[in-house]
């Protein structure tokens, strides 16, 4: 016990990297690890595609129009997220909840469109182990990567909903809004990853 207490006392009160909060550093370290997961998935995609002889042209199989709109939605939801953070920095709790609500709405719409896209592609004959347009790994990597990203969006929607709910109860103010900023970091990261997924899986 005393040892634990001593260790606690030795812990510096603020982190040299993110003086505002330890939580922010924690989120950055988590995101760096998460980026490695996405990075290896995308690198694996590149390797499978590079070594495949019958990889289909993605734009010929996947709908670019719908996913372009999904990209647009996520970019918009990133803007509403920063607007929400800006609002609470001014102490405007009402606007914080409004902008967080819009951000969550963007995420939910994104997920709805992804569900529609997946349903459509599965009916057309794309599966985890089957692809009528060529290499089966195209289906495997497509569902793995977009699914892993979709799970992140789902997590973000739940995460931001909780922050919005807390915000509506007055949990955040002009002087105390670290949790909003940290949640925002996660949401922007999910947007950033989608930008890369859209380019490498859909357009390239």
């Amino acid at each position: 016990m005393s040892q634990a207490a001593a260790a606690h006392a030795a812990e510096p009160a603020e982190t040299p990297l993110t003086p505002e909060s330890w939580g922010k550093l924690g989120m950055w370290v988590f995101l760096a690890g998460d980026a490695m997961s996405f990075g290896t998935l995308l690198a694996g995609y590149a390797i499978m595609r590079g070594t495949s002889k019958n990889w289909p042209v993605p734009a010929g199989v996947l709908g670019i129009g719908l996913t372009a709109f999904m990209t647009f939605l996520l970019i918009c939801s990133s803007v509403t997220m920063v607007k929400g953070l800006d609002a609470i920095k001014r102490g405007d709790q009402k606007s914080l909840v409004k902008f967080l609500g819009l951000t969550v709405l963007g995420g939910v719409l994104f997920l709805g469109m992804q569900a529609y896209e997946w349903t459509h592609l599965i009916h057309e004959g794309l599966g985890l182990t089957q692809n009528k347009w060529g290499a089966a790994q195209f289906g495997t990597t497509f569902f793995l990567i977009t699914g892993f990203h979709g799970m992140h969006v789902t997590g973000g929607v739940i995460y931001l909903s909780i922050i919005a709910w807390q915000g509506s109860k007055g949990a955040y103010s002009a002087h105390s809004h670290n949790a909003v900023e940290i949640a925002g970091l996660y949401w922007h990261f999910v947007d950033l990853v989608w930008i890369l997924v859209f380019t490498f899986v859909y357009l390239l």
Partner: protein
Amino acid sequence: MAHSHSQHVNYMAIFWWLLLLTILEIAAGYPSAGPSYPHLLKGFLLVVMAVTKAALVAMYFMHLRFEKVALGYIAMIPLILCVFVVLMTLPDF
């Protein structure tokens, strides 16, 4: 909206840049561009634009531009790893 923050970011300007780059990306990635448009050029253009967009999100929405430089190093590590993984497997292509 001119409030006294330590960071002054015109978020709408970032939004328009992201939108413009997305439109250019779709134009560059469109499959019916014809054989005169080399695949390598298409790949190069798309990667440059995607990395630019990702950097804009990280620098301005995630405020990395206003953080300590060492935090940027943490953010860069996955990118280095990813490039390394692809380069390591290139001989198998």
